[in-house]
């Protein structure tokens, strides 16, 4: 079966091409015009950071680009990025990778290639952002496991019950109060701490 990934409509998209003035830039801007996306080009200064965030896609030069051009850490671009690669020297390819390119176009730029690069970059970027968010969530959960263990111990001691029963109690509390288990556990530990302080 064919993949049913949604193709973005590119409605109202704005694109920034970070490349020195060159025939390749003209070719890219022409492709953008044909596709129907508003695009501008800047070099080497990409403009103020706040304004940069307003672009829906960034094309950057892998040949002459440099880290200081970007107001974000490598790999942390807030929009999909496409590397424009001329020299395939490993150092430059590696730099483009390190910047977190979601797709690439090889120079010289002809009359095709941009549309598929845009679609691929859009999906790669969205996928990566979703994974990063999931990883952050999992890390937070892992960090919170300690609090669950502590809350289980609190209930075991307080009510003289086995670990499994204590844990089920936390789970029921979480469900009843529509919280995560970690949040419910934190509340139990906090209550126990304050009782201890009052004594």
């Amino acid at each position, binding site marked *: 079966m*064919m993949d049913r990934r*949604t*193709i*973005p*409509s*590119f*409605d109202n998209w704005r694109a920034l091409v970070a490349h020195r003035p060159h025939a390749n830039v003209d070719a890219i801007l*022409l*492709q953008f*015009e*044909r*596709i*129907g*996306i508003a695009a501008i080009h800047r070099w080497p200064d990409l403009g103020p950071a706040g304004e940069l965030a307003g672009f829906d896609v960034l094309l950057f030069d892998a040949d002459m680009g440099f880290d200081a051009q970007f107001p974000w850490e490598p790999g942390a671009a807030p929009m999909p990025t496409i590397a424009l690669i001329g020299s395939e020297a490993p150092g430059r390819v590696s730099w483009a990778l390190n910047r977190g390119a979601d797709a690439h176009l090889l120079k010289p730029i*002809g*009359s*095709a290639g941009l*549309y598929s690069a845009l679609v691929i970059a859009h999906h790669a970027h969205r996928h990566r952002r979703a994974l990063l968010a999931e990883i952050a969530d999992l890390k937070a959960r892992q960090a919170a496991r300690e609090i669950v263990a502590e809350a289980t111990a609190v209930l075991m001691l307080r009510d003289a019950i086995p670990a499994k029963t204590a844990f089920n109690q936390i789970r029921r509390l979480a469900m009843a109060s529509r919280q995560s288990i970690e949040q419910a556990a934190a509340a139990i530990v906090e209550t126990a701490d304050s009782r201890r302080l009052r004594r």
Partner: protein
Amino acid sequence: MTRPRFPIGVLFSRSGPYEAPGRQGFDGAMAAIAAINAGKRHDFDLMPVIADPQGNADRYAILCQEMLRAHRLRHVVGCTTSWSRKEVIPVVEKNDALLWYPCVYEGFEASENVVYVAACANQHLVPLLDFILPRFGRQAALVGSNYIWGWETNRIAREAMLHSGGAVVSERYVPIGDTDIGHLVAEIRQKRPSFVLNNLIGPSSYAFLRAYHALGREDPDFHPDRRPVISCNLYEGEIGSLGAAAAGHFTVSCYFEALPTAANRAFLRDLAAAGTTGPVTAFFAESYAAVMLIADAIAAGGSDAIETVLAAATRSHAATPWGEIAIDPVTHHVALPAHIGRARADGAFDIVELAGQAIAPDPFLTRTALRLGGASARPATAQAGNLRVVS
């Protein structure tokens, strides 16, 4: 004094699995070349350089390369399928030549070395669905030949149905040339869609329409008045040989032989005077128009160099059988009207919706609304497409 001669490539398959439209493209180009050479409007002759890939996709690039080398020609009119066009593009790009592509296609392309003298999806499928949905319903069955035209046109249809409060109840493909389509009709009978979007080509399409006609006779619920088959590329010559099997179904096109305009009447009169017999389809008319565009541009610019021809052809309007057109300098496509025709048993079309004005080309579908047929439904997913209203 002899007139200067400019060679022009004519690259169509006159045999193989899509010979009917291929022949129409060939005949249209040759009729236009003959008209130019016989007429006084141009002070030069066009010399056709002919090659026939016989429907074999692998022959197109080789034959195109040969004609470009041997005759140093700059312009090739040809290709019917998208598959063959994709084969030819690298050749014309490398040789600084122009391919004039005279057939409807799915879009998502804009080569600097191609001029697209026929409709892309926003000029055929989109207005066709816009016409059909409010009249027949929003449950679509999609059938297609197993290559890029069928896949992509059906993908766009699927997206349009999604945005238009409709649904796709089935989607099936068969290899190009395959006529074993019983399972397609059986599924359609079971799913009872409001209409069938037919992106089959050649013998597969004919076999399907015959089988669907047989189904309609067995079960009146599948009569074209209830659940029609709709196409973006099924024209006069082909429905002529299908007779009653095609009657009542719908096609969208910038050109029908029945077009009631002065330009079309004059075009058909000239063709008849020149001895053309048989039906004249959009494939014929678009190919004819492509040669006329080339000739007028050579006349205006005084050279067949592609920059000169492109500059002239994008600057001024040229007369075609369906009206005046100009090439969009950005996309190399043309604005086209989308008329809706309903097939008759005698091989002609009744034009049931005569388009008021030409639709600007939007090959990448970034400026076209896909909410069609008066749909008010919100799209079913958060990933909404473009929701602007089609003009």
